[in-house]
C-alpha cells in the first residue's frame, strides 16, 4: 500500500466521525460568538487548542470570570486523556523523525485515536500505519475548523443537531466495548462519573477513567491468574 492509499484509507474510515465533528465544531463556534469571541478568535482557538471539550470549558469558565490559572488547569485536566491516547498509539507511530512526530502529536484527538487504533486492532499490523493516521487525523482537523467557522459565522442559524456530538460519543463508546472486561471498565467508570457529577466542567472525567482502568486492570490480572492455574 502506498502512502497516498493509506492516507485515503484513514480518511475514508474517519469520514463518518469527521462528519460528526462538523456539528460539534459548529456548536463550539456558536457558543464562542455568543460569548463575544470574533469568528477569527473562534478559529484561532480551534487551530491552537484543537480540543473541543477543553475549548468549550475554556469559554464557559472565562465567561463566568474564573481565575486564569484555574481555567488553564481545568483545560489541561480535560486534555490529560491525550497522554493516555499518545502512549497507546505511539508504538504505531515510531517511523518518522521528531519534527514529523510533533505534527502527529498536534493532530491527536479522541476521534483520530479511536478510528486509528480500532483499525490497527481489527486489521492487524499494517504497513503505512502512520499515513493511515495522518489521513484520519487531518480530515478530522479540517472538519473541526470548517465546523468552527460555520458555527461562528452563522450565529443566527437554528440547528437541532446539537445532540450530534453526544451521539457520536455514544456510538464510539459502544464500539469500544470489545469484551466483558471492557464492559466492566465502562460500568465502573460511568458509576464513578455519575457519583462525581457534582464536579463542574468535566472534572469528573479523569477520576472516573482512572477507576474504570483500575477495575479493568484487576479483572485482567484475575483472568490471567485463572488461566495460569
Amino acid at each position, binding site marked *: 500500500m502506498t502512502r497516498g492509499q493509506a492516507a485515503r484509507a484513514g480518511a475514508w474510515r474517519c469520514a*463518518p466521525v469527521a*462528519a*460528526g465533528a462538523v456539528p460539534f465544531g459548529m456548536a463550539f463556534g456558536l457558543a464562542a460568538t455568543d460569548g463575544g469571541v470574533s469568528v477569527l*478568535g473562534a478559529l*484561532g482557538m480551534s487551530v*491552537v*487548542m484543537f*480540543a473541543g*471539550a477543553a475549548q468549550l470549558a475554556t469559554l464557559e469558565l472565562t465567561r463566568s470570570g474564573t481565575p486564569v490559572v484555574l*481555567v*488553564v488547569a481545568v*483545560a*489541561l485536566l480535560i*486534555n490529560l486523556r*491525550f*497522554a*493516555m*491516547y*499518545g502512549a*497507546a498509539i*505511539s*508504538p504505531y*507511530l515510531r517511523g518518522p523523525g521528531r519534527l514529523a*512526530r*510533533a505534527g502527529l502529536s498536534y493532530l491527536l484527538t*479522541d476521534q483520530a485515536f*479511536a478510528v486509528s487504533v*480500532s483499525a490497527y486492532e481489527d486489521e492487524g499490523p499494517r504497513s503505512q500505519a502512520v499515513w493511515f493516521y495522518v489521513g484520519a487525523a487531518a480530515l478530522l482537523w479540517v472538519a473541526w475548523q470548517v465546523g468552527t467557522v460555520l458555527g461562528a459565522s452563522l450565529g443566527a442559524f437554528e440547528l437541532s*443537531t*446539537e*445532540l*450530534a*456530538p*453526544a*451521539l*457520536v*460519543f*455514544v*456510538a*464510539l*463508546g*459502544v*464500539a*469500544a466495548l*470489545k469484551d466483558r*472486561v*471492557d*464492559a466492566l*471498565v*465502562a460500568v465502573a467508570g*460511568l458509576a464513578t462519573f455519575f457519583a462525581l457529577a457534582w464536579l463542574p466542567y468535566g472534572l*469528573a*472525567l479523569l477520576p*472516573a*477513567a482512572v477507576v*474504570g*482502568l483500575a477495575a*479493568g*486492570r484487576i479483572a*485482567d490480572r484475575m483472568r490471567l491468574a485463572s488461566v495460569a492455574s
Partner: protein
Amino acid sequence: MSALVVVVIGVLTFAIRGAFILRRGGGGDGRPHPWLVRVPAAILPLLAASALSSSVASPEDAPKLIAAATAAAVAWYRRNLLLSLAAGLTTLWILEALL
C-alpha cells in the same frame, strides 16, 4: 478572553499529546501497555455520558435519551458511526415533531 490563555493551553496540550509520541526512539515497545489497552473503554463511554448529561436537563429532554439509546443500539449491532448518528438524529427529529 485573552489570546495568551489560549496559547498557553494550546502549547501545554501539545506537550501532553506528544508526551509519548515524541519520546526518543518513538515511545513504547510495540505493544500498548496493559493499562492502556482499556483506555478506549474507559474514556469513550464517559465522554458520551458527559456530552449527554450536559444536553439532557429536564423531562422534556426525554427524546434525546431515546435518540441516544437508538444510536447505541445501532452501534451495537452495526459498527457504523454514520448509520448510528443518522439513526439517533432521525429518532430525535421524529419524536420532536410528534411531541
